[in-house]
């Protein structure tokens, strides 16, 4: 049986102006990967930070953001850092279609919970070791 390991020094960012939802996502992800999770309350600050300090492995962003919204952010980030996983979330079905068109890797439909966030980690952050080596990479 293959053993699960987490991408070494995985870097995750969460962007949402709703601090209650954002903090819930951060708590769940921080617990999952046992790493600091970057947070931003608008798309512009996030973009500036990524350009200066490097792009995360995974970004989870609300579609509705000030200055640079989530849909624009997906196209900018996919152009600058194609390997970064982009996850968008929204309470609007129309935004799911737009997210797909912009090239998002995943869409979280609100309301979502712990299971969906764990599924994101399992899908995009966990590496399957083909040798079955159970040692951790982190």
């Amino acid at each position, binding site marked *: 049986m293959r053993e699960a*390991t987490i991408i070494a020094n995985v870097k995750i960012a969460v962007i949402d102006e709703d601090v*209650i939802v954002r903090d819930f996502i951060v708590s769940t992800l*921080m617990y999952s990967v046992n790493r600091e999770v970057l947070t931003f309350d608008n798309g512009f600050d996030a973009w500036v930070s990524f350009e200066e300090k490097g792009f995360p492995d995974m970004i989870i962003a609300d579609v509705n953001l000030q200055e640079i919204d989530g849909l624009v952010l997906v196209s900018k980030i996919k152009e600058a850092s194609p390997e970064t996983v982009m996850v968008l979330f929204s309470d609007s079905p129309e935004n799911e279609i737009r997210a797909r068109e912009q090239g998002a890797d*995943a869409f*979280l*439909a609100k*309301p979502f*919970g*712990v299971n969906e966030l764990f599924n994101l980690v399992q899908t995009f952050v966990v590496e399957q070791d083909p040798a079955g080596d159970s040692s951790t990479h982190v």
Partner: protein
Amino acid sequence: MIRLGSKPENMREMELDDIFISRLQLLIIMTKSYLNKYPLGSYRERSILENAELVKVDAVGLAEDIAFFGSHEDFHNGLNFEPVFYQRVKLLAVMAEAFAKGHSLEEHKQEALEKNLNTICETITFSKTISDMQFLKVA
């Protein structure tokens, strides 16, 4: 693109009650992981402490709402628990804070923790088992 979360017809903004239930589910997973002796780590400890504190504050507030208004049905969409449920959630949060701070729980306290956890899980619908989450076994 993968899709997760609510069906299109059920999509809506997340309410405080949604966050309370989700944070409680996270606390349950954190506690089950502890009881299964999965590794912690500084960020996991921090996450447990923050989550336990928020769940505790919400549980106390919701219990006070019941004491004042008599029922949640009119103003908390979907939440209709007995007052004792919130006392159990508060106890779970306090115990989680204890193990996250490194206080070892003696055997009888671990049994009490497990019993409390099982009672809470019987009250809320929650299907996830931690065996599904292999990544929790590494820190």
